[in-house]
């Protein structure tokens, strides 16, 4: 009897799909490493400046002071600005642009993909032609044009990145919607007169979410690289420090001094690596085919 009771108890130990995925995620070593690096970067860039209060634009010492000399941990850049302050404050805007661009990417992508995949027919035709239009334009060029048309600011840069990179998210969403809309639980929802909006957002989207979450995580990395690329080409807000801007500003001095471009480069590399590791971890955790039963 106690056996049966125990079995009963076990069966009732409710584990939601999300919790199960989380358990898978934290048992994945590389995902944990990624999460640790990412958390560290967030903490450093957002808490660090509260402690280390040097202005990243202030000319604090002689230009191109090597790291460690005269008490400047990472040295100074070609204008004599403190690189530690630049990395800390610049990290904030780089991460913010990356996150905002990812949100924009995934929002446009999901909306377009969901409508096309759910309604099919002419809606699908029209939205897919638009998607193809954006796909064939060279993304960096289009982003440059967009940023130049408007003032380069964090907002316009985030939007420009979002607008040039939503297409793959849209295609992914559309494919998932086309698959799930044929499943019987969607028919079941229709048989009780669920509205189209309810079926799209409350029935299909949660089930399409796993690959979209992975894609969103990875697009943060892509957006950070994109921002760095634009800044490198000089398309950045002159009044806001960022990692890309540090690299771009110091580019002419690269042969004289390695450090002003290397440290922000390493920061970008670590962030993108961490985001990719998290994305891969999420993929493994959310992909039911890999999940042990």
């Amino acid at each position: 009897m106690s056996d049966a009771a125990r079995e009963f108890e076990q069966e009732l130990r409710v584990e939601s799909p999300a919790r199960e995925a989380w358990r898978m995620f934290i048992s994945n070593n590389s995902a944990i490493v990624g999460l640790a690096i990412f958390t560290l970067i967030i903490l450093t860039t957002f808490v660090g400046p509260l402690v280390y209060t040097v202005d990243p634009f202030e000319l604090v010492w002689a230009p191109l002071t090597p790291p460690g000399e005269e008490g400047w941990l990472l040295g100074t850049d070609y204008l004599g600005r403190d690189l530690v302050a630049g990395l800390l404050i610049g990290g904030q805007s780089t991460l913010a642009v990356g996150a905002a661009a990812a949100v924009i990417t995934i929002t446009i992508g999901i909306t377009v993909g969901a409508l096309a995949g759910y309604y099919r027919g002419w809606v699908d035709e029209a939205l897919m032609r638009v998607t193809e239009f954006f796909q064939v334009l060279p993304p960096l060029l289009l982003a440059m044009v967009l940023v130049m048309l408007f003032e380069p600011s964090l907002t316009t840069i985030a939007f420009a990145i979002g607008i040039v990179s939503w297409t793959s998210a849209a295609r992914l969403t559309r494919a998932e919607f086309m698959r799930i809309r044929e499943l019987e639980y969607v028919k079941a929802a229709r048989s009780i007169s669920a509205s189209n909006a309810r079926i799209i957002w409350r029935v299909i989207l949660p089930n399409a979410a796993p690959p979209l979450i992975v894609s969103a995580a990875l697009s943060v990395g892509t957006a950070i690289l994109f921002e760095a690329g634009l800044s490198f080409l000089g398309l950045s807000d002159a009044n806001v420090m960022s990692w890309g801007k540090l690299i771009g500003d110091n580019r002419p001095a690269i042969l004289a001094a390695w450090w002003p471009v290397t440290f922000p480069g390493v920061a970008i590399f670590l962030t993108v690596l961490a985001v990719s590791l998290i994305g891969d971890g999420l993929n493994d955790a959310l992909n039911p085919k890999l999940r042990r039963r």
Partner: protein
Amino acid sequence: MTEEPLLQVRDLKVHFKLGKRGLFGEPSFVHAVDGVSFDVAPGTTFGIVGESGSGKTTSALAVMRLVEATGGSVMLGGTDVLQLQGEALRMARRRMQIIFQDPYSSLNPRVRAGAIVREPLELLDVGSPAEWDERVAELFRLVGLRPEQRALFPHQFSGGQRQRIGIARALATNPEVIVCDEPVSALDVAIQAQILNLLRRLQSELGLTYLFISHDLGVVQHMCDEIAVMYLGQIVERADRISLFRQPLHPYTWALLSAVPSAAPSAKGGQNRVRLQGDPPSPIDLPPGCRFAGRCPFAEDRCRQSDPPLRAIRPGHLVACHLVSDDGKAPHMEAIEA
């Protein structure tokens, strides 16, 4: 059956358009369901049996308004379900629910079992929110699940239990008609019996009317009071359960019955057996005449020229075949005697 039918399907048609051939070509149509008519008396089970591509599932989905019918009418107690829109359709859906084939894809994996069963109550405004929890618990008990299991997710149930959840969901709004679309074909043999017995018990306790779709003749014989045999979108024979199996009139029905392997040791030996050649043709671009003519061992010229109408040989026994005489002599009967 003199009782007023609860569900009256008349000349139901579902045609799907396929892509055009070439830029200016004529679009071709799949005649998935092509003029299907039947009545279902309250408290009885009407079965539709057929092979893949026969249109049996499409008919059921069209009755439920889950695929758009091209023509015809579906009268549910005096109102044509196919004409309803918006609020009126929502009200009609309380009276008509469906049980799906695949218990693995018919339950949303991200929703708890209790919420799945509660959803029809919420969306179709049945009762007050205060009553919903009690009603869901009652439904769980009714289908043989424990009310405590409401908090579980679908993947924590076995196939049979999942189908019970599907049945509870269909029962939630106290419907009069339940469409059962192959409700046991995805289940293990030993579990099928549990579900079939449950469906029969619920029918007698709640007075339910079933529209029962299956490819399994044994299951149909056990469950249904009246049966229609479909072939390529049309009903080829319709009769009550006893007549259809004792005296199949259409050569297709006869071939279908004789193709079922029998586990009864006495029936082994293979006499009186017919083997159809080939597969059922696709319902695209159908040839003129009887749709079965291409595979029928008795087909004559007239079968390939004109489409046989569904006509009554005896009251309640209808068949669509040129070769069945008015006094109920079917071609295969002579073949057996010969």
